[in-house]
């Protein structure tokens, strides 16, 4: 995974709540056995709306998306994160995310920034005409107008994003502990061996 420290540029001011993963990438795009190329199906149902933001030339290749509460709710499909990466989005700003989506985002180099609704409202306003900066080193979102919003992120997730870390490799380095756990749990709960 590519390390990520800062995301700067235009932000799509979507603003909607409960944007579900069927909206981010409909099921008929899930019949793939690779991770690439899903951007073509991203936000298909919103793109069918006349005058939608995704097809507005001023947001072409915008690296940031701003949304409402509960972004990424619904299905566990990581295709949602793959589709967003494929369309060039590497940061999302919203008041809350579904637990599964925010995990999938981090594992694919997308920064899920959590900010309160009033900050999100201000950023939605700014984003109409101006760029926004998400800085993961300082955990801030800034605008050209001296706005500065601090956010917090689970330190492990932040480290993974900043370092572009391979979690599987990190865990495999702890194999002795896993083996020890298996021996102990197997003795206490022998029925677990299927």
């Amino acid at each position, binding site marked *: 995974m590519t390390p990520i420290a800062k995301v700067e540029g235009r932000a799509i001011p979507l*603003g*909607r*709540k*409960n944007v*579900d993963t*069927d*909206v981010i990438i*409909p*099921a*008929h795009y*899930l*019949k*793939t*056995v*690779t*991770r690439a190329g899903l951007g073509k199906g991203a936000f*298909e*149902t919103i793109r069918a709306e006349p005058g939608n933001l995704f097809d507005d030339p001023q947001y072409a290749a915008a690296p940031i998306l701003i949304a*409402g*509460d*509960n972004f990424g*709710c*619904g*299905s*566990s*499909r*990581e295709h949602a*994160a793959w589709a967003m990466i494929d369309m060039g989005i590497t940061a999302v700003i919203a008041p*809350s*995310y*579904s*637990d*599964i989506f925010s*995990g*999938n985002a981090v*594992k*694919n180099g997308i920064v899920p920034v959590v900010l309160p609704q009033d900050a999100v409202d201000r950023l939605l306003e700014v984003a109409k005409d101006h760029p926004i900066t998400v800085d993961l080193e300082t955990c801030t979102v800034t605008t050209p107008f001296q706005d500065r919003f601090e956010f917090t992120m*689970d*330190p*492990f997730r932040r480290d993974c994003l900043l370092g572009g870390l391979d*979690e*599987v490799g990190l*865990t*495999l380095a*702890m*194999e002795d*502990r*896993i083996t020890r*756990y*298996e021996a102990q*749990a197997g003795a*206490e*709960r*022998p*029925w*677990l*061996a*299927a």
Partner: protein
Amino acid sequence: MSIKPRTLYEKIWDAHVVDRRDDGTCLIYIDRHLVHEVTSPQAFEALRLANRTVRRPDLTLAVPDHNLPTTPRQDAAGNRLPIEDAESAQQLAALEANAPAFGIRYIGATDAAQGIVHVVGPEQGFSLPGTTIVCGDSHTACHGGVGALAFGIGTSEVEHVLATQTLLLQQSKTMEVRVEGTLGFGVSPKDVILHVIGRIGAGGGTGYVIEYTGNVFREMSIEGRLTVSNMSIEGGARAGLIAADDTTFAYLKGRPMAPTGDEWDKAVAWWRSLATDPGAAYDKVVVIDAADIAPSLTWGTSPEDVVPITGAVPDPMSFADPSKQEAARKSLAYMGLTPGTRMQEVAVDNIFIGSCTNSRIEDLRAAAEVARGRRVADNVKQALVVPGSGLVKRQAEAEGLDRVFIEAGFEWREPGCSMCLAMNPDKVPPGQRCASTSNRNFVGRQGPGARTHLVSPAMAAAAAVTGRLADVRDLMGASA
């Protein structure tokens, strides 16, 4: 040393901590991993590229379900019939090749035990109380019905579990949803969970694991509990839990993968010890009076858009939150509904009885009871009954339920995810309206432009025979 009272969730969590990092992230051991064809190919591919193996293939079970057509899979001579959609065929073939290549047990498309992973797991006794269960599918929450900590994961996590049998997780907060009292006539477990989601909202459970408590759940069958826990994710909670009890043990005993002999007795003793301690605190408590729950359904495009069947399509202006007003306006435009219309006046085009939420034998019995001796209304274009597994199908046929459905004008299909998610040939055509026992009413979920109303199996059958969204209580107890 005094031990702090703990909840069921905290006890299962504590029993699975392999390592705790300074920042609070825990490495959690995974006891059971269910795999299906849609969210696994990229994980197996990543293992191959990194030259990694599956750590515990014996704790992993693979079943195809999402892409499989629900039409017959073999000809009269027993030959496999081809899958017409090339991409679906490729994805199914990938699982069929990956499972043996990595030594994983595989229940294939023509196996009598094949079905939806979340139906197969409990049915086989693979899903056990007190275990951690994951699957690359958000409805893994389902297995909380047998008292397992079960949750959906993304494909990177599927890869992580395949390689390490663990996951890096932050502990969730706990929410108690307590339903006490007596459920009214015609009120099913599906109505209970729809009511709960309507109450807490689609994001209300985000960051929480829900434990369902109270006499309503204690008195509920395991299949009902699976239905309830299944839709925890529609309320934003990654997992739901219902403490295992004698009902759970009776359900699991003797299932093919359940423990036997001394191990069974030891297991039951441990499972009993997991119940939430008296005095344990939840981070949030929601109390619901069972008497307030009516047969319910959704009107919009979020699972929180719930009304009783006696209700009407709401006016978007009736919501306090301006963004919900806007969302409701968009939902009603998509759904083709007008504020104030009584739900029972809305005609339907399609009926879907199936999905991991409602495709077990009790669901089919409840639907068949309403369908028996009646006919699917003329305005209904398609009415599907899709058993959750081959074993459910066989049981239903032994009870004659297939005949009840077929004689009423329903189609009786092969097991799979079917019309729940528009990945296989079963779809709701654009602009058509479906009374569906599935779990999501999102825009396009059952097919582009499809309009979904989530209902219980009995309510779906009532909609089928009346041709409109109907109050099942008007049809129950009275013969056709």
